């Protein structure tokens, strides 16, 4: 069996299921944010159930349009806040405790290896990096989980992606996953579990692994799982407040496909508008002048990402006419970045440092693009109108390319700027 099959089996009463079967599973963690929780709460209230099946397994994070960008968003947040207080929710993150959810939950030890996690946010797949089965669902699924503690899952087949070799300079998890999506396309893993493995993955930090699992959904994947190992345990152990289980795929596990990539072939990547699959090596980006750089998000707003960016921007200035936004993904990341002097480096370079929020990634607030503008972002989607006006364009990359390009004003390979 694969890791995914073992986790599903451990959470279901159904035995001997096969891919394509629909099974009921017990949910360890059910997550929603200020955009998706209101619909779930409405449905929950309509059902007239007095309390949640397992309130301690439900997590709400107000991170998308926060700090509230307008009256309507403030009302949405208040609706969620009132519900959380009414139900005495332990895992409710608001104000200075809130951070970008998929950076926050692992940091707080709320998602652990072997967990079955559903989240009313498509990037819930991030937790696959911890060896969990984590998948994005809608608000109605969340309401059902709040009521019953369960979800329905169509058992997916697994595609295995093996990364061998050593990473080239300035290449990180984001580059590997953009390269992968570029190879298989935005529906290359539709309905499937992506199991990401190999010696190059074993050598990656948790931050890089989370960047990769985060974007499984950008290939259509249901989950992006990386087997938990010593690196995972070192990250999880000091944070976990409950037991967890590490699963590994059997030698004779059945995969729909196995694809191997040699990291020696992979340069830092840039995904061109308007799909993440339009990835190409930064060296082939050509002369693309950009108006805004965003470094942050659930994909690349962790301390390791900020260190990479600061290492390149140290002692340099953001190009004239370009806005560079840096949003540490959680309060803890922000504090650590202050302690390490990274925030000073960004401010001295002329960057804007903002609070943890998903805002600019989805064109919500803090960095909306004007007509025809171009942004280079460490976020995960570059769809039409994603960050603002429908005629604006988003290019995706990792923190090294973003920082180098913020300095030059055009899409630039990191080695051209870094000393």
């Amino acid at each position, binding site marked *: 069996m694969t890791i995914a099959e073992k986790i599903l089996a451990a959470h279901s009463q159904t035995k001997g299921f096969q891919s394509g079967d629909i099974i009921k599973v017990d949910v360890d963690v059910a997550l929603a944010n200020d955009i998706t929780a209101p619909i779930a709460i409405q449905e929950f209230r309509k059902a007239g159930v007095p309390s949640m099946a397992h309130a301690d397994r439900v997590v709400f994070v107000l991170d998308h349009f926060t700090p509230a960008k307008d009256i309507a968003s403030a009302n949405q947040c208040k609706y969620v806040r009132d519900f959380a207080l009414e139900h005495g929710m332990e895992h409710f993150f608001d104000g200075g405790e809130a951070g970008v959810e998929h950076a926050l939950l692992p940091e707080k030890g709320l998602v652990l290896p072997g967990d079955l996690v559903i989240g009313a946010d498509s990037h819930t797949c991030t937790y696959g990096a911890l060896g969990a089965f984590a998948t994005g669902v809608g608000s*109605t699924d969340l309401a059902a989980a709040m009521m019953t503690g369960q979800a329905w899952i169509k058992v997916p087949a697994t595609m295995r992606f093996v990364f061998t070799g050593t990473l080239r300079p300035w290449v990180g998890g984001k580059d590997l996953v953009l390269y992968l999506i570029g190879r298989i396309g935005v529906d290359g893993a539709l309905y499937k579990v992506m199991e990401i493995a190999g010696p190059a993955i074993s050598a990656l930090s948790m931050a890089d692994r989370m960047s990769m699992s985060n974007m499984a959904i950008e290939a259509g994947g249901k989950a992006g799982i990386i087997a938990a190992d010593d690196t995972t345990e070192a990250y999880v152990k000091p944070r976990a407040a409950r037991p967890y289980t590490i699963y590994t795929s059997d030698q004779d596990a059945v995969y729909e496909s196995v694809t191997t990539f040699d990291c020696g072939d992979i340069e830092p990547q840039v995904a061109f508008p308007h799909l993440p699959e339009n990835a190409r090596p930064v060296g082939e980006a050509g002369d693309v002048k950009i108006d805004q750089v965003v470094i942050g998000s659930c994909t690349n707003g962790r301390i390791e990402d900020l260190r990479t960016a600061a290492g390149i921007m140290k002692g340099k200035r953001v190009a004239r006419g370009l806005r560079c936004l840096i949003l540490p993904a959680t309060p803890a990341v922000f504090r650590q970045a202050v302690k390490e002097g990274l925030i000073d480096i960004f401010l001295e370079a002329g960057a804007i440092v903002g609070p943890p929020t998903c805002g600019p990634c989805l064109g919500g607030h803090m960095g909306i693009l004007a007509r025809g503008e171009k942004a280079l972002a460490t976020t995960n989607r570059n769809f039409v109108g994603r960050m603002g006006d429908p005629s604006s364009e988003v290019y995706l990359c990792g923190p090294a390319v973003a920082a180098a390009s913020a300095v030059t004003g055009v899409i630039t390979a990191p080695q051209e700027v870094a000393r």
Partner: protein
Amino acid sequence: MTFRGRAHKFGNDVDTDAIIPARYLSTSDPEVLKNHCMEDADPEFPGKVQPGDVIVAGKNFGCGSSREHAPIAIKASGVSCVIASSFARIFFRNSFNMGLPIFESDEAVRAIDGGDTVEVDADSGVIRDLTTGRQFQARPIPAFMQELIADGGLMEHIRKRGSI
């Protein structure tokens, strides 16, 4: 149940930001969302869509975000059902959970032109292009998901049966 309406044709990989841009997500009110449905794919869509009309799209329809505002906006705009070559997985489950009928048939999508009158028999999955007289068979829907549609969505399903 039979759906009948004019086809509005879209390409591959229509994402949830095109179906309902995030700039409108400070509400989940269907009456507000419907005014911006498909806006970034076709700005004229909200003004021209008629009750009963059918969205016909290529592969991976609804990719991207998990926002249920997308199927909510489509339903509220009066669209009776969506036919696509394939659906992104979260949009797929959201549609069944919320009772928006969707059908997969690459053959139908290739053959149906925008503006054709289309009829879909929800029970048999037979799709007819009444303009050209051609007929197609949608991919069968798993029994559990048929139950969801028959019950009127996931929450009604739980209400009726006591569990998922």
